[in-house]
């Protein structure tokens, strides 16, 4: 939907003069309303992005002592890709699995809240958001306790043979993906709920009247109508999960580290700013490309 549709003049009108001054005033209002957000984006997104892009092209032989020169050293990108390809692929793999798991968990949950919860609806929504009342870090640390080697989860799984007797859950890929799924589940559930909740139930009834089975009605009516929520939910889960490093840091080992861990260490420990910036930029571009391909395929133009 474009702004023009709402604030533009509604075609030629007999009373030209008043309409024109109204449109001028409304245009100024629109600008004023947009200005704070635009300024915010400019100062805190556009400028730092340019700075980051410049940093990623610094001469890598620089150091803190000697300073860095901007030499358009594109090689930085190839260098980091060569060294950290594994962590890149792992980030997208883990984030992808976590997104699918969150969808499998979140869709039935959102469906139940939207259609079946009755007077418990508000309570259930609060419960979905409740984990946000504690910090992200604490929630992840709690998983360390839950998945501990001598904890009851591992013991029970060992008893039924799902985990080998000398195996463990903590410090494995399973733990990292579990942590990612858990931490981003509300981001999946809430947009799905918002979409599902808006669906007019009479449409589903109409489908039944036309002899569709429950499954067909879901596939042909409910699912397509919930697509905006599904797309928004998967994006809100996948994008932060791909850049996350807390879960890998706390629940994984060096073999599970993701690209976020590498970026963190390049900026803060190794102090290799060109490489760190190149990594950040690559991550941004990769996510952008994936998201654009996904949104195009999902065909939900009204979202963007």
């Amino acid at each position, binding site marked *: 939907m*474009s*702004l*023009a549709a709402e*604030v*533009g*003049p509604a075609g030629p009108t007999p009373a030209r003069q008043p309409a*024109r001054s109204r*449109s*001028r005033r409304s*245009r100024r209002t*629109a*600008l004023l309303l*947009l200005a704070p957000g*635009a300024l915010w984006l*400019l100062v805190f997104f*556009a*400028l730092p992005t*340019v*700075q980051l892009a*410049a*940093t990623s092209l*610094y001469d890598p032989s*620089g*150091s*803190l*002592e*000697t*300073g*860095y*020169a*901007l030499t358009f050293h594109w090689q930085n990108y190839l260098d980091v890709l060569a*060294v950290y390809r594994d*962590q890149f692929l792992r980030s997208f793999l883990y984030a992808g699995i976590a997104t699918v798991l969150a969808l499998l968990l979140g869709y039935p949950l959102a469906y139940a809240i939207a259609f079946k919860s009755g007077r418990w609806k508000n309570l259930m929504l609060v419960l979905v958001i409740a984990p946000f009342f504690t910090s992200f870090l604490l929630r992840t640390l709690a998983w*360390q*306790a839950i998945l*501990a*080697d*001598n904890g009851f989860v591992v013991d029970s799984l060992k008893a039924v043979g799902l985990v080998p007797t000398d195996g*463990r859950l*903590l*410090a494995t890929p399973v733990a990292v993906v579990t942590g990612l799924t858990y931490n981003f589940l509300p981001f999946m559930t809430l947009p799905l709920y918002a979409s599902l909740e808006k669906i007019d139930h009479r449409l589903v009834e109409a489908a039944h009247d036309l002899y569709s089975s429950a499954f067909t009605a879901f596939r042909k009516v409910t699912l397509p109508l919930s697509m905006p929520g599904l797309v928004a939910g998967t994006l809100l889960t996948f994008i932060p999960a791909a850049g996350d490093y807390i879960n890998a840091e706390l629940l994984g*080992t*060096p*073999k*599970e*580290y993701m690209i976020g*861990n*590498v970026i*963190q*260490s*390049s*900026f*803060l*420990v*190794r*102090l*290799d*700013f060109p490489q760190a910036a190149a990594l950040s930029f690559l991550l941004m571009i990769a996510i952008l490309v994936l998201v654009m391909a996904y949104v195009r395929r999902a065909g939900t133009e009204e979202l963007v």
Partner: protein
Amino acid sequence: MTSRRPAPPGRPVPPGLSRRSFLRGLSAGALGLAGGGLLSACGVEAAQQTTDSCTSEDLSAEEAMLNFSNWTFYIDPIKAKDVSTLEAFQKRTGITVDYTTDISDNAAFFGKVRNQLADCQPTGRDLFVLTDWMAAKMIGLGWIQELDKANLPNVEANLLENLRSPGWDPERKYSVPWQSGLAGICYNSELTKEVGSFEELLTRADLKGKVTLLSEMPDTMAFMLRVVGADPSDFTADEFGQAIERLQQAVDSGQIRKFTGNEYTRELKSGNVVACEAWSGDVIQLQFEDPKYKFVVPEEGLALWSDNMIVPNKATHKANAETLMDYYYDPEVAAELAAWVNYICPVQGAKEAMTKFDKSLVDNQLIFPDESFLANTFVFMGLTSEQEQDYQTQFQQVIGA
């Protein structure tokens, strides 16, 4: 920096504001700003400072205050009954100390202050405590003020002999040790038998996946260098490469679960980890809770390190900072601090002072080591900035980042 001005009032205004024209305007503005940003982004100046390029003013005479940044749990707490060493200092000298525990990691703290120090700007801190290699790096960058020895008579008299001339500050012109400590091995004696060496830690099959090492590069690499037969206080790039390779093998085989900071104590308590590389003071505190945790002097020896008090450029209370340093080198004060902190006390005479109020720790080699015990320790070589970046990169790539 340029920015788009709003249209002057008298100009004709096109009807309506479409999203397209707004976006066009926005991107033009962004380009303008970005152009300005690009100009300022043409590289970064050198961070090196000298006494000429960055002079600091000392307002200690007028302002009786001090901003002191330290690590968490690194000073005796303020207690209801007794007076803490810091309170006593404030009473004795009239200097108000703003004590902050905002250091938990050398590298992260460096990231926090580097922009200011590289630009010769104040950090808001008069005194902070950093480990040898990081203190060495900051001194090398010219970010640290030289101390006035005339204000430090206690330090001159009581600093332990073997801490007086580290390679990176041979005359202790810039730094005074706060506490020293040892890195060795800690194991849980209820869950495993004694672990006597790093070689065992890296290879014993029953420890597989239940071992952590420290994420501080000098601590861990000192031992790895010993394992491959090199001297951590004097090694070549080749030897470092061999040590890294050895570490990589241990990571690949799944022997090592993790590289950690202080949080290895949590992993030990939960039983996830049964043996690890550990800092002496942590182990003493663990032993207060449960004597099943044992500290071992590995066959390879012990890594000795110090955390040092240093005064950054542009700190405005250097004389006050020196007063505090000197205060903590009074043996009585040092003994009280050591009784709580449990690391190696760098002050001669503190042991005798401690016998007066607490005999239980006096014979602990990890707090008051004797000559023969110290003969078994080694100190990590001071590194140039390039070496540090190179070695840190190799190390970080092995530990997964």
